[in-house]
C-alpha cells in the first residue's frame, strides 16, 4: 500500500517532476518522433509554428493518456518491480491530482490541436486518447492476452495525426505507417513480456506469456515480425516512397525477422538471461526510429 502523502494535517503539493513522470516521457519521445515524421512526410509545406504546435498537442495528448493510464493502474503498478517506483504506487502523488492532471492535459491538448491545425486532426487525437484510456487500459489490458494487439492501435495514431494536421485529410502512406506501428507493437511488447513475465504474472495482467505460455508467445513474435516486415516494405513497391526508404526498410526488416527467428525458435532454461529477447526489444525501438527517419529523408530527397 502506498504511503501517505500527508505531513501532519497538511498535504504536500505534488512535485512537478512527479507530474512530468506521469506523462511517460520515454514513450512520448517515440510518439513525438513518429508524429513529426508523419507531418514532415506530408506533401505540403506547413508553417513551422503551426507544425510545432500540432506536434506539441500530440505530445500533450500522449502525456495525458500516460497519466490517465498510470492513475487507473496505480494498484497494478505497485505489484510490479518495473513500475513500483512510479509516482502513484510509490506514494509521492495523490491519485486525485493525477486524475485532474490527466483530464486537464487531455482537454488542453485537444484545444491546442484545434487552434493550431484542423478539426480532423483534433478528432483523431481525441479518438487516440479515448482508445488508449478506455479501450486499452480499462477494457482490454486486464481481460485478454490480445490486449497489446488491439491496444497497439492507440500507439499507431501519431504519424496519422501528424499527416492529417498538415494536410487535413487521410492518405494511403500514413495509413501504411499506422499499420506498421500496429504490427510492430506485438513483437516489441511480447519480447519485453518474455523477460519480465514474472512481473506481469504477479500483477495478474493476462499478457501472452502468462496466459498462452512461452512457446506460443515466441511463435507469435515471429509471425507478427514477418507480417510487419511486409507492411514496412509495402510503401516502396506501391509507389508511395522511393528506394531510400525501400532499401532501409528491407534491410532493417530482414534484421528484425532474423532477431525474431532467434526468439521464436528457442526455449528459455532455468536462470536464462533472455539475451535474444532483450536484443530484439532494444532493436525494435531503433528500428522504428530509423524507419520513420527514412520516410522523411526519402520524401525530402525525392522532393
Amino acid at each position, binding site marked *: 500500500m502506498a504511503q501517505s502523502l500527508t505531513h501532519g494535517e497538511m498535504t504536500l503539493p505534488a512535485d512537478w517532476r512527479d507530474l512530468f513522470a506521469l506523462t511517460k516521457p520515454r514513450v512520448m519521445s517515440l510518439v513525438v518522433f513518429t508524429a513529426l515524421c508523419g507531418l514532415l512526410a506530408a506533401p505540403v509545406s506547413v508553417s513551422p*509554428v503551426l507544425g510545432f504546435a500540432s506536434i506539441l498537442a500530440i505530445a500533450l495528448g500522449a502525456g495525458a493518456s500516460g497519466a490517465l493510464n498510470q492513475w487507473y493502474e496505480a494498484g497494478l503498478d505497485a505489484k510490479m518491480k518495473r513500475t513500483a517506483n512510479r509516482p502513484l504506487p510509490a506514494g509521492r502523488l495523490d491519485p486525485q491530482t493525477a486524475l485532474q492532471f490527466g483530464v486537464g492535459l487531455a482537454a488542453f491538448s485537444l484545444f491546442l490541436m484545434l487552434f493550431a491545425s484542423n478539426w480532423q486532426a483534433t478528432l483523431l487525437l481525441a479518438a487516440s486518447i479515448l482508445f488508449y484510456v478506455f479501450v486499452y487500459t480499462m477494457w482490454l489490458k486486464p481481460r485478454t492476452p490480445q490486449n497489446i494487439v488491439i491496444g497497439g492501435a492507440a500507439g499507431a495514431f501519431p504519424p496519422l495525426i501528424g499527416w492529417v494536421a498538415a494536410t487535413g485529410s487521410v492518405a494511403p502512406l500514413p495509413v501504411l505507417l499506422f499499420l506498421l506501428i500496429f504490427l510492430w507493437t506485438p513483437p516489441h511488447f511480447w519480447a519485453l513480456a518474455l523477460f519480465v513475465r514474472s512481473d506481469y504474472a504477479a500483477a495478474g495482467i493476462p499478457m501472452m506469456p502468462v496466459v498462452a505460455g512461452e512457446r506460443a508467445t515466441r511463435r507469435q513474435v515471429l509471425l507478427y515480425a514477418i507480417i510487419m516486415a511486409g507492411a514496412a516494405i509495402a510503401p516502396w513497391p506501391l509507389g508511395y516512397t522511393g528506394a531510400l526508404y525501400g532499401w532501409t526498410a528491407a534491410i532493417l526488416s530482414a534484421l528484425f525477422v532474423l532477431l525474431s527467428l532467434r526468439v521464436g525458435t528457442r526455449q528459455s532454461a532455468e536462470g536464462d538471461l533472455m539475451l535474444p529477447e532483450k536484443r530484439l526489444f532494444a532493436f525494435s525501438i531503433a528500428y522504428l526510429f530509423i524507419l520513420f527517419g527514412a520516410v522523411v529523408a526519402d520524401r525530402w530527397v525525392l522532393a
Partner: protein
Amino acid sequence: MTEEPTKPPFDEAEYRRRQRSRANLMAWLLGALAILFFLITIAKMQIFQ
C-alpha cells in the same frame, strides 16, 4: 490494509519549496503558452491573407 501509515511531522520548508517550484514552473509555462498562441495567431493570419 491493516496498519496506519506513520505520519512524519509537517515540514513547512519542504511545503513552501514545492509551492515555489510549482508556481515558478506555472509562470514559465503560461508565459510560453501566451507566446505560442500569439505566434499561432500570426501564422494563421498569414495563411488566410
